[in-house]
Structure formats: C-alpha cells, structure tokens
C-alpha cells in the first residue's frame, strides 16, 4: 500500500492505539487484501473474520443454553 507508513503513523496518534492486539494484524490483512483485490477482497476478509467470531460465539451460546 502506497500510504502504509502514513496510515500507521496516523493510527499511532490514536490515544487508544488501534494497532494494539488485533489492530496491527488486522491492518496487515487489510493492506494485503487491498493490494491483492481491492474492495471485494476486503469485504471477504471482514466476512471471514465476522464469520469466525460468529461461529465461535454461536458454539459457546449453545453450550450455555444446554447448561440451562
């Protein structure tokens, strides 16, 4: 990405440091997806991340329901 360093510098100004934890890996993934396939690739990336969280969430939710 042409503006990678500028964006990272800008993110570091964020008082909550958005690059902590998943932030930086997310940014790396966003950058890779952006360079490879633009908007569609980023949409797919977020779709996969959401789906991964949702799947794990649903599994735990079901365990809780069973426990009730």
């Amino acid at each position, binding site marked *: *990405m*042409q*503006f990678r360093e*500028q*964006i990272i510098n*800008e*993110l570091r100004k*964020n008082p*909550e440091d*958005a*690059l902590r*934890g*998943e*932030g930086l890996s*997310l*940014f790396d993934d*966003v950058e890779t997806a*952006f*360079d*490879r*396939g*633009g*908007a*569609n*690739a*980023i*949409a797919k990336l*977020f779709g996969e*991340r*959401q789906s991964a*969280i*949702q799947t*794990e*969430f649903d599994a*735990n*939710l079901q*365990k*809780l*329901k069973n*426990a*009730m």
Partner: protein
Amino acid sequence: MLTDSEPIGLTELRIQAFRGVTTQIRVRFDNAPVTILFGGNHSGKSSILNALDWILFSKDCFQGPLVTDRLRERVLWETRNRHVGRSLETTCTAVLSNGKATCELTRSLAGAGSRSRATIHIDTFDGKELTGETAEHFISTHVCPSFRDFMSTVYLHQEVIRDVLTIKPEERGDAIDRLLGLAPLRELARTLKDAKLGRFTQNLDNEICVIEQQVDAVRRDRQQRIDQRVSEAAEHKLQPQDVTFKHAEHLAHQSSKRSKTVASNAGLPAPEVPLPATEKDLERYTRESQDKLQSARTALPDVKKLSELNQRKTALSDARAVYEERARQRNHAKQRLADFTKEKGDRIKLEAERARLQACRKVKSNELAQHDARAAAVRDSIQYLQALPSPAEAQQCPVCGATIRGDDLLEHLEREAPERLDARSRSLSQELKRIDTELPQINQTLRALEQLEGDLCAAEEHLRSQREAVGKVLQIEITKDDDPKALLDRKLDQLDEELAARKEAADNRLSELDDIEEQYLVPLKLIDDILRERARLQELGRMQKRDEFKELRTLQRRAASLKAATEAIGVAAAAVSQYAAKQAVQRAGQRSRDTFVKIADNPEVRDVRLVVGEKSVGGILRNEYTIQDPDGLSVVPILSQGDMNALAIALLIGLGLSADSLPLRLMIFDDPTQSLATPQKERLADVLDDIAASRQIVVATMDAQFLDVLKSRVTKRKRVYEFRSWRGTDGPQIAALD
C-alpha cells in the same frame, strides 16, 4: 520505492493487434520535446496512447482493483483487436531512452478470450532480459511506480478533465483525488465503512443480552418450583431447616428400619436398599425404596389370600348367575308349552282330531264317488227311456223311490232327478272342502307343539349341564334333590365372612406400608427435589462465571476491537488522504496557480488557490476541493468551462513538474482544448512550450486550430503525425507531417 534512476523519455511505440490497431504500426517519438497526434474522432490516436498504459501497467489500466481508479470509458475494454486473425499476436513495445542507451518493454497477450494472459518482456538499458515479476518490478522502480502515479503525473486523460470540469463537488473530489493519486485512500475508507461491523457487534451485544435474560427467566422459574416444593414439604410437616441432606439421611434410616420390621412381621424377606451416601444418591434411594414397597404390597400373604378369595367369590357368583339364567329360561319354555296346550290341546287330542278328519275325508270321498256314479246312471236311463215307446205298467223312481205309472216315469225322472242329484253333490263337495282346510291347520298346530316341546327339552338340558358345573365349582356332587342356587348362596355367605376377616388383616399391613411411604419416602423425595432445584439454581448463579460466558464476553470484545480498529483505519485513511492532498496541492502549488492564471486569463480571477477541506458523506470523511480567490471566495460560480479545463491542465502540470523523482519525464495531454477559446489555446501552447524544456510532451488533439497554434507557437522540436482515416479491418492510416 523508486531507485535513483536517470530521466528517461519515450523513443518509439510499436503496436500490433491492439485495440484499434491491426497490423503492426510504428510511431517514433525520438525523444522529441513535443509530439503531436492529430486526427478526428475514432482515427486511432487514443489506441496509440493506451498502448503505453497497457505496456506499463497491463490490466491495471482498465481493470484495477479499485472502483475509483477505473476509467469509466474503459469498462469492458477489449485489449485485442477483434478483426485480426489468430496468427497475429497482440503485442506492443515501448522503446525508452535515458540519453545513453535504450530499453525495450514488450507486453504480449497469450491465449484467447477470458483465458488470455498478458506477459511482459524487457531488454533493459544495460542489456539484461527480464520477464514476469522481475520485469514488473523494473517498471515500478525504473519507470513509474503505479498506474495511479501515471494518471496523476503523466497522463491527463479526457475523462479526468471532464470530471474536474463538473460542478458536482463529490465527482470533482473523486477526479482530483484520482489526479493526486489518492483514490486508494478514498476507496479504503469506503470499503471499511461498508463492512457494517456496527450491526455485527450490535447483534452480538443483543444475543448476550438475550441469554442473560433467559438465565434470569430460568432462575425465576426454578425459584418458583423451590417455593412450591417447600410449601408441599410444610404440608408433610417438614420445616425449612429440615430440608438438608442430614435430615434426608435420618428419614432414609428410619424408613429402612420400619420396612424391615414390617417385612419381618408379614413373613416377607427383608428389603435391601443401600442407604444414600450423598445428595445425588437420594433420588436412587427413594426410587428403589418405593419399588420395594410396591413389591411388598402385592407379596403380603394376607393380600395374596384376599386375592384368591376374591377370585373364588367371582367364580361362584358367576356360576350362580348362569344357573339362575338357565333356570329362568327353562321355566319360560315350560310356561309357553303349558299355555299352548291349554289353548290348542295336548298332543293326544290334536292327533285324534287329525285322524278323525282324515277318516271323515275318506268316507265323504267315497260317498261322492258313489253319488256321481248314480247320477250318471240316471242320466243314461233318461236317455234310454226317451228312446223307447212309453211303457204301460207302473215303475219305481230310481231317484225318489216313488211308484210311477209306466208312461210317466220318463217325465218324472226328467222333472225330479237333476235337482236332487245336484243338491247332494254340492253338499258332499262342501264337506270335503272344509276337511281339506282343517287338516293343514291341525298339522301346523302339531309342528308348533313339537317346536315348543323341543325348546323345553333344550332348556332342561342346559339347566342340567349348569347343575353339573355348579357341582364342580362347589366341588360336590349335586343330586336332583339338591337346590344348586341355595348351595351357592350358602357358600358365598361363608366366603364373604372369610373375606371380611382377611381384608382387615391385609388393610392393616398395607396401612403400615402406606405409612412408611407417607412418613419417610414422600418427605425424602421432596427434600431431594428441593436440594436438586437449589443446586441448579446455584449453577445458574454461576452461569456468568462459566468459561463459555467468559468466552462470549471475549468474543464480544474481539468484535468491538475489530470494529474500533476498522473505524480507526478508516479514519486514519481519511486523515492521510487529507494530509496527502494538502501536500500534493502545496507541491503543485505555485506552478498550478501560475499555469491556470496564464491559460485562463480571466480578468475576474487573477489568482486562485485549490483548498483542501473534508466532508462527511455517509459517515465517510472525504476530501473536498474548493477553488478560491485570495479572499477565500469560491471562484467556481464565475469560472467558465474553459477556465475549469485550464484548471485541470494546470493541476496536472503542477503535479507532473513537482514529481522530480519520477524517471519517466513524459507528459501526455489527451484532447486538452475542450471549451478553450483561441486565445486560451495560444496560451496553452505557450505553457507547453515552457514545460517542454524539462518534460517530453505528447499532445493528442482533433482541433485543427490548436494544431496550427502548436506549430506556430511551440519553439521546441516537434514531431507531428496525422491520423487520416481508420477502418476496423485496416487500423489507423498515419502520416508524419514534419
């Protein structure tokens, strides 16, 4: 990204089977300061310029990953000329020069249709051959980093000019962003916004909220059940403090002890149920103890005997009922026979009457036969006498016996005989008819009598059979002098007395068992239920401390973090876009302003500034460009279309000249004179002449007047190509005019 490369210029383009070009054409630029491509619409000028895009950036120049990067006119672009045969390969070569050596970049299209693939081959300035990724890397480091840079510093496309000319701020913002190479940042911000993570995280929050509410609802339900059980326990004299495992153990012990005593007293084996060791064992103990009690209820000797006596009583009662029914049926048959014989007579009388009627019929039949014979004789006599002469002596009448004078006998017979003989014949016939009527009636009566006698006989047989059955039930022999019913009644009375005695004993035993259940097992089950429900309630209370719940919270935080990071990247992209826009505008600054003022020469606008602001559109921060005079007033409302065109050109020139690190020292102007008047065209030519000192200029135009202006006002060396005609099957016809 760029290395320290020497400035390079365009020497030659060789194009074959590409876009509007069929067989190979060669266009020489020879590093001339200015090259002019002149010709009308669809004469092939753009195909020449597009070939350079394609050689350098392959499909990125018409099918880049970013929507905002794509030129609208290049949607569904066909790279290969559709008229050439398969044998003619699509291939384009750009020859570049750095003043000392040349470099050839050749892009070819392998394969056909959707499976076609562009390949690159480069002969570098120092004689190396490069292909594939290495060759692509060479272009980005030694020629131009990207198509975006190419569009902002080298090639002022017609579409960019048109978009800058538009008065719609958003479209102008897109166009200037593209011109400044900022389209990726705008695209990134838009895409991140489209991820809709806000809705996603909201859904997770809602689901956690729902599960918490469900836990509360289940907790309330369990508490209600506990309250209900505690209330039931109170009815069984269980105090709240008794609802403990310790008390349950006590009850189990008492229950076990009592059960063994009762079993011993009743002569049953002692029930063996292991006492509960833990709370979880209570349910097992209660269930097994109840099963044992239930088994004991049926195994008690008194209960068993009571059951046998009841069975015996049922058998006797059934036998008595059947006997009574059979006796009733026999008496009924007997009564019907008696009534019949009383009305119709007995069998002797009825058979005597039938014999009498049969004899009488025989006599009357004979008499009628004789009478008929006699009547026949009289009729014959009359015929005989009528044939003879009248006799003299007297004669006796064969019919009435009277003495008749001889000659009067015939007259007497004719007068007397027919009436008398006919009367007697009728009388005899009537008598026979009456007998024939009475005989069937007497036969029918006799058959009815036989039926009734048969019924009585059958009823008697059934009754006899039942007497034997009663004898078997009573286990005695019943003689004809015995009354079975009385015998049964007496036996049943004896059984009732025995049953009453046994029932009292059985009830006492059963009562003891009921007492064990009521006193110990029911309270035990209540305690077990309450303890279980309490345990479940406690489990619910710990629900939010379970790993699954913690995991849900973690995932919720991860989703929130994803959302926050995404938003932060979007905001950062917008901020960088803003910063980069300001940098680029500042870099292009004075040169762009001077160029604009020079070309436009608008007396109302002696100075302009491109001011970068930002505006939130649909939650996305976007660059907004306003063109202001030194007083900060927007000049767009007073700019003509020609002025706006001049502005777009001025921006490209400013940006292009400020890109000092770009090796490719080339600026391409595609149809730059839209809406420009003659004086403005002249000033544009002067500007191009100025910048031709540091940049190689390529101008494509259909404007004959502008061609003349360029020829006369540009002082640098020029190459001029005229595109005279173009046909799909032949490609452009190009003539060099210089």
